[in-house]
């Protein structure tokens, strides 16, 4: 209990370094374009002022409550394998584990080193930081390692030319001055918790050393070469110390260049003070993320008694920090431990018209799927916890409860027993987890105090799960609020943000994502139905449970299918950061980690720069784009690519912090030692001083080459996936180095480097273009004059004039080689593919059939086209896709034109399937105001079509109207001239039922016109005239709307007409006029054909929908957003068939 009890006393005291801070970060969020902030300074400062979370509960909480219906059979399937007895023989066996999560707490120092031959390291009194590391051993047991004795420190540079007296006496003086200052800064906070048993006054500043073998990374001839390394008691003190040193302080024993002692206050530049404590440890001990660690026999102590243990892990070890052996992820240690992954999903019973709120709406089901990594047989446990009875589900455990409290507690019991390493799910991070926490808090407040323990999900005993809101802003993703949750020892890996970050899709609903990657559909149960099902019978709840279970299983399948876990593990190993950093932070931390590691090897130090308030990035010129020669090329166009252009530029020209020369220095330096970059910055040659960044890149790219080779030779599919994950991780990491130097608000921005990189890029591109165009000419004996038709960042498209792919390949290969020879190593121009044919529409907008071998094309490659954008209707996507297919693959331009014309004609004649015209947008924040649900007027300034429609639908029928968070489908209908767009939006179902005319002109001009023009512009002249106007647009059809209240049709009087010629006839004259009567059979046949077609369509669509949803005996409830079951067509055919039947029935029998 030592560490936990200690921790509890510290909880009131502000030195507690709760793990939350580790992950939280200031604005750490998603963003790979480098504009995210991760304010480690803020992070540390936070610690000293931010008192977090609810207080720990008292000790009297019983651990697991026994539940009658959770049987031993259940438990035996849930729990981890038993710990082999060999583990307990600590003096005979090494303990190996793959670690996943890391955090830090404050605690008391070890009484004795578990390694009996050595003494205790670090501070011996006061509160010391203890690192907790969580992982899994080879046999699948969970392990927690408490690492002791690692002391936090920071570097502070002496200004250039100054020296410090490095004698022990002087350093002792410095220490006590710093101690004094620190205490003053910390104020009463420090003393408060100072009640340690031995009565000693703990120190804040533990020691100072003086270093002269280190250099600053900044500049070829760095200004800082002398450093003070200051150790402090707790990591949280470093930012304070940094402030003290930056503000200026008078220290003894400092002499200036002339050897005179300096008496006045001086500023010491802080170095590496922004490195999070655990990362500091990892870097110093060469521990990389998710790697294997060995605790050698005899060096560690296992906590055997339950009372001793601070966590729920099966094995708990204490060790001194320097005893652990980190394993390089190679050979045997490249494996992945049998990690346990829990995927879950909850259902709540929302009230009609509101998004579920934890305050009011109960959680009714929790479905779980637990699997073990590397076990191919699928999940080891699937179960559902339900509120209220539920019929059994074949192949899954169903555990029912009568009260919500019971259900939640049972689920927690499961959580503990299953002891998962990774939590996953779909949008669990922002919905399921916070909802459960909030719900428990709400219930707890009301009555049930037992629920206080519900939120203990982590591995640390008696520790609540905490969450906090973070705001994240990025130019790429816009503003979003995220909830970050800390569950000690477990990693939350939400699949939704992963998909959003890594795959460009038109919809990110679980349904459509699974359709895309797993070719699997799930039934979309609308949340209004969920409530009804819950209130129904056991069979209804069974149905809901099956649905819920599927929601839990699918994210896991997705994870497996996309090798997500292995990719992240590899990324963590390559970049050296914990896996959780990869999930919750941007790209910068990875590069930062790599730079720090590399610098440590070569005795360089990284300065902690002050944040330049407004970002301070004077923009620099980015990549260049050669002007495209827009056309439809029916001959092969070869694409020459620079392989990893930016990384190789940095290598080739030795661009780095440590190789940069200021203009003044350059003037004094031998010109043969450096090279002036294209935009006027100077970097020394690599033979003078090799830069850190080039070294990092070199290693990354070399490792990638090895990984690619290993991938080819991999004996198993599994191994292949591992190596592929590795090479991808390496590639991404190499590319992010450039971004790191260019990020305005980064850790170590350096515009000269970034701008030099892009200027070299431009230079290389231009040079390639001019070389190819000069060399491949008829004058040089080639058949045609080559022409560069387009170039972008790192690729040029060359028209060699050859007519076939086979002729183009040799030329392109030769050109690539010759150009590569012009450029310094390792810049290499590669020939990868030929586009044939190639439709070049504009900058960054093209399509072509890609050939990487002569025999057969690979696929159609498109860039920058509307095919995936979701805010267009399906018609646009289909028309664009089909036209491109016809143009590019079939090479049938007339066919494409005909197709487009026929589609436009269909649109104007109202023959278009309404589902292709539906546009969907979701009701997001701000819409509450318009819907009358509260909210603020300023959140809803511009009237949006879908929000206005939702408000109108609410007036019509509050029950079925879309609710907050729903996606609202709409179509644009005809309305009074000059009506705004938002007035013309209408519910597709309503349109179908009332036969309301669609505004086909709007679709033509606002949806189809632009993309079509773009595609056809390079092919035909005057697209506007020939495609969008013309004969095929003359014939239009506008249906007569069904009479409805308030519409003009109310005043129309309906008269009986002849079914043949529409002449009006008397009411009692039957259905045909006297002229049409002889043609009765013919007219009947016509009407019959319509009915027959509609009947067939009905039969086809509905039976197909049954097949898709895998049910014959229950009605399909799917409302079809993103589902293949053709909701609108099914609705439409029901209306069609009714009309057709009425028509036929008028003829009698």
């Amino acid at each position: 209990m030592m560490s936990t009890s200690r921790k509890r006393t510290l909880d009131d005291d502000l030195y507690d370094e709760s793990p939350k801070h580790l992950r939280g970060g200031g604005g750490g969020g998603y963003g790979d374009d480098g504009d995210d902030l991760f304010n480690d300074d803020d992070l540390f400062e936070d610690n000293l002022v931010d008192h977090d979370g609810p207080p720990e509960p008292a000790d009297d909480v019983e651990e697991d409550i026994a539940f009658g219906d959770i049987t031993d059979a259940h438990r035996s399937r849930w729990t981890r394998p038993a710990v082999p007895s060999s583990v307990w023989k600590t003096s005979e066996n090494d303990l190996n584990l793959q670690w996943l999560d890391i955090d830090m707490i404050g605690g008391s120092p070890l009484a004795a080193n578990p390694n009996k031959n050595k003494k205790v390291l670090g501070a011996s009194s006061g509160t010391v930081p203890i690192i907790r590391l969580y992982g899994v051993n080879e046999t699948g047991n969970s392990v927690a390692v408490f690492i002791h004795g690692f002391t936090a420190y920071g570097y502070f540079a002496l200004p250039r030319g100054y020296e410090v007296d490095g004698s022990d006496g002087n350093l002792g003086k410095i220490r006590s001055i710093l101690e004094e200052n620190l205490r003053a800064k910390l104020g009463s906070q420090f003393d408060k918790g100072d009640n340690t048993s031995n009565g000693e006054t703990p120190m804040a500043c533990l020691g100072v050393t003086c270093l002269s073998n280190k250099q600053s990374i900044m500049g070829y001839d760095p200004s800082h070469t002398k450093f003070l390394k200051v150790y402090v008691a707790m990591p949280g003190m470093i930012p304070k110390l940094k402030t003290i040193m930056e503000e200026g302080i008078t220290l003894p024993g400092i002499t200036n260049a002339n050897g005179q002692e300096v008496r006045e206050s001086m500023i010491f530049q802080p170095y590496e003070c922004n490195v999070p404590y655990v990362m500091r440890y990892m870097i110093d001990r060469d521990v990389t993320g998710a790697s294997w660690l060995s605790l050698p026999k005899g060096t560690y102590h296992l906590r055997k008694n339950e009372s001793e243990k601070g966590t729920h892990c099966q094995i708990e070890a204490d060790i001194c920090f320097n005893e652990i052996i980190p394993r390089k992820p190679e050979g045997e240690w490249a494996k992945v431990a049998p990690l346990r992954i829990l995927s879950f999903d909850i259902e709540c019973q929302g009230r009609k018209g509101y998004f579920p709120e934890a305050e009011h709406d109960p959680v009714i089901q929790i479905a779980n799927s637990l699997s073990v990594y590397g076990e191919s047989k699928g999940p080891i446990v699937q179960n559902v916890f339900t509120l209220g009875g539920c019929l059994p589900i074949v192949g899954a455990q169903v555990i029912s409860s009568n009260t919500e409290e019971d259900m939640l507690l049972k689920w927690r019991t499961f959580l503990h027993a299953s002891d998962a390493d990774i939590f996953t799910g779909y949008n669990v991070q922002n919905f399921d987890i916070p909802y459960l926490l909030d719900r428990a808090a709400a219930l707890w407040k009301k009555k049930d105090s037992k629920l206080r323990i519900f939120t203990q999900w982590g591995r640390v005993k008696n520790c609540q799960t905490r969450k906090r809101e973070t705001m994240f802003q990025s130019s790429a993703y816009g503003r979003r609020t995220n909830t970050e949750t800390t569950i000690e020892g477990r990693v939350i890996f939400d699949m939704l943000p992963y998909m959003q970050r890594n795959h460009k899709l038109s919809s990110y609903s679980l349904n459509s994502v699974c359709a895309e990657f797993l070719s699997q559909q799930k039934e979309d149960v609308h949340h209004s139905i969920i409530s009804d099902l819950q209130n129904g019978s056991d069979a209804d709840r069974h149905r809901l449970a099956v649905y819920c279970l599927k929601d839990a299983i699918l994210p896991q399948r997705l994870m497996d299918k996309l090798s997500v876990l292995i990719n992240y593990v590899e990324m963590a190993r390559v970049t050296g950061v914990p896996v959780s950093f990869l999930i919750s932070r941007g790209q910068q931390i990875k590069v930062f980690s790599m730079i720090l590691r590399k610098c440590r090897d070569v005795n360089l130090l990284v300065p902690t720069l002050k944040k330049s308030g407004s970002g301070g990035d004077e923009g620099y010129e980015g990549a260049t784009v050669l002007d495209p020669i827009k056309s439809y090329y029916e001959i092969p166009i070869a694409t020459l690519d620079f392989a990893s252009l930016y990384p190789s530029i940095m290598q080739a020209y030795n661009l780095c912090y440590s190789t940069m020369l200021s203009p003044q220095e350059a003037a004094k330096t031998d010109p043969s030692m450096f090279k002036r970059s294209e935009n006027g910055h100077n970097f020394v040659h690599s033979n003078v001083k090799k830069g850190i960044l080039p070294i990092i890149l070199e290693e990354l790219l070399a490792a990638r080459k090895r990984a690619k080779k290993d991938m080819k030779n991999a004996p198993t599919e599994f191994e292949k996936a591992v190596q592929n994950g590795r090479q991808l991780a390496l590639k991404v990491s190499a590319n992010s180095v450039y971004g790191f130097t260019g990020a305005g608000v980064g850790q170590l921005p350096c515009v000269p480097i970034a701008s030099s990189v892009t200027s070299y890029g431009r230079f290389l591109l231009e040079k390639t273009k001019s070389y190819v165009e000069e060399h491949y000419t008829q004058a040089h004996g080639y058949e045609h004059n080559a022409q560069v038709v387009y170039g972008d960042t790192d690729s040029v498209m060359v028209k060699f004039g050859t007519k076939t792919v086979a002729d183009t390949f040799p030329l392109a290969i030769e050109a690539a080689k010759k150009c590569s020879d012009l450029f310094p190593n390792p810049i290499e121009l590669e020939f990868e593919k030929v586009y044939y044919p190639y439709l070049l529409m504009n900058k960054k907008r093209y399509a072509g059939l890609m050939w990487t071998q002569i025999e057969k094309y690979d696929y159609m490659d498109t860039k920058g086209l509307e095919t995936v954008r979701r805010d267009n209707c399906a018609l646009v996507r289909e028309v664009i896709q089909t036209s491109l297919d016809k143009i590019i693959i079939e090479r049938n331009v007339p066919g494409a034109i005909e197709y487009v014309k026929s589609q436009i004609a269909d649109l104007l004649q109202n023959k278009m399937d309404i589902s292709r015209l539906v546009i969907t947008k979701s009701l997001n924040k701000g819409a509450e105001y318009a819907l009358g649900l509260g909210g603020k007027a300023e959140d809803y300034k511009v009237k949006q079509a879908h929000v206005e429609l939702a408000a109108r639908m609410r007036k019509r029928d509050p029950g079925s109207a879309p609710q907050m968070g729903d996606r609202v489908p709409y179509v644009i209908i005809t309305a009074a001239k000059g009506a705004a767009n938002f007035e013309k939006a209408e519910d597709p179902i309503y349109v179908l039922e009332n036969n309301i005319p669609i505004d086909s002109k709007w679709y033509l001009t606002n949806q189809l016109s632009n993309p079509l023009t773009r595609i056809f512009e390079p092919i035909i002249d005057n697209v506007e005239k020939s495609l969008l106007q013309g004969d095929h647009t003359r014939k239009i059809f506008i249906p007569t709307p069904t009479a409805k209240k308030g519409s003009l049709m109310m005043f129309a009087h309906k008269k009986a007409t002849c079914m043949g010629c529409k002449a009006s006839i008397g009411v009692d004259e039957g259905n045909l006029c006297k002229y049409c009567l002889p043609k009765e059979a013919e007219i009947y046949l016509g009407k019959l054909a319509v009915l027959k077609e509609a009947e067939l369509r009905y039969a086809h669509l509905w039976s197909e929908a049954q097949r898709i949803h895998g049910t014959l005996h229950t009605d399909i409830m799917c409302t079809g957003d993103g589902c293949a079951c053709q909701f609108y067509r099914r609705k439409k055919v029901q209306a069609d068939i009714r009309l057709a039947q009425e028509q036929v029935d008028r003829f009698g029998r």
Partner: protein
Amino acid sequence: MPTDQSITRAYAPYTPSWQRFHEFAAPLASSSGAGSAAMASAASQLNPYARQYSHVYSARLAALRERCLANAKQSARDEGIISGEDDDECAAERIIEVKEGVWSILVGTIVKETDPTRRPPVQSKYNDATDAQSFLFPSSDGENNGSQMKQIESLRSYLFDSEKGDVIHLEDESGRVELAPEDETLDAMSVDVDGSTFKKSNALDPNNLATGVVAAVVGKVCATKGIMKVHSIHFAGVPLSDATSQDAMLIEEEEEEEPVLLLVSGLGCGSDSSTDGETGASLALRREMLLEYLTDPSLSNGASVCRVIIAGGGVSPSNQSAGDIGRPGGPNKENSKKNYNNVAKSKSSKPSDAANHMAFSLRELDLYISELLSSGIPVDYIPGWHDPTNANWPQRPLHSCLLPLSCTFVDLFSRCTNPYEGTLGVARSRNGAKNAESSMKVLGSDGLSVADLRRFLSKSDSTKDNDAEKNDGDDAIVSSCMDALHQTLKYGHMAPTGPDSLPTFPSSESDPFVLSSRPDVYFVGNCDRFETRLVNVNGEEIDESGDDKVGTCMTRLVCVPSFALTGEVVLVKLKSLECEVVSFNDANL
């Protein structure tokens, strides 16, 4: 035609009962005309097409459940798997209530789930009727150039293949359970020569199953994967009809002329071409010969025909050449369907040749039927797939305006639904003088249900059907029409593949196609060749030459060949249920 008025035509009193189908074919709700908004919304409430198909399956399961269960219990008791007392216990009320690891009987609807990637995708084009067509009849790709091989190939790819990941489920309202053979020796079993016949026919053989069939399954659910290991499968079968007809089957030898039912399908009126590819006989000429056969007593025994049933295909399918029609085989039939639909499609926009063709064909058909009628023979017309009526089963009778001449014979001509059902009374004299009457139930359809079912039943090699040898090669993988027809009798359902692949009306209260009593004559039209089979109460085939048929209650199964294809009609003697084929072509005359 010179008709001798003095001939006496055989007579059988007729009671139609096909009207029960008509309720489904032309639902009452739709008879309300386009009215005010209020009316329209009321109509939409009643619109049967606002329903989904799930009700069809529910009604079907409800109707067949007990029969399947009884058969399964009987068999399980016979095998000693369950004892008499606990059989109620092992029969789970709902699928999800099944207990793991013990013998249990489950009743549900079979779902044959094929891999979605091998399923043709839903076309996104609206207003194109061919998409539904191409899915329903996948063999019809490539209009006229689709070679036989290609069609067979596409059929083969559609067939169930567990190696490609296809699975069979059993479903009821509560959910699904996957079915798997009891052990891995399924293949070995079919190789077994003796003693295995019983087992084989009952084990989980995908070739005996189609989506929509209701079955009882005996087996055990294995706990870990939740899969039902199937020991045997039992279908509903057909219950005995009322007792009267039973002893009536004890027929004494009588020399009195027996009334005969004439079954014909595929008259093919309006076919442009004059000659048939195979025989050289003109189709029109053949029709004349048939007419003569029926009306001229001097020529043959045509006077014994008491009723003619035309089972679909009265008009030729659009402007297809006769050569195409003449091609044998089921797939060909489907091939022509698509063309019809093209007609339908083009008609809806503008009257075309196809429309004219249809009008012409109908006139010819009308004329022909009226000639038949004028000789005093009652005619029942069952519309078929190509005929101008609606698509969903049950199909409506042809509209009166399409056959104006025939419709004047109010007493003799009946326009029926597809499927058809009626009862013919047969006068019998027993013990010399006493006259008694017994009724023969006649049930049949144009054949689409069986054609559709055939696509899911592949022929297993060891069937006792001798025709397999005749027909090796091309369509050997598809089970014969007769096998499929016989199978529907075992299923206790006329059209089990509807609504899954056969277009069907979404009925809700009851499933009209459930066989609730045993028909005496059960036929389908538009087959590629004539086949017949006599079946006893247990649904097993009877050797016609043997004597054992006496005293049993039998059903005569008939596959009526397409007249346009073969020139053949089928005669069924109503007392003895003897069946013969009459061929009309040059060789006969």
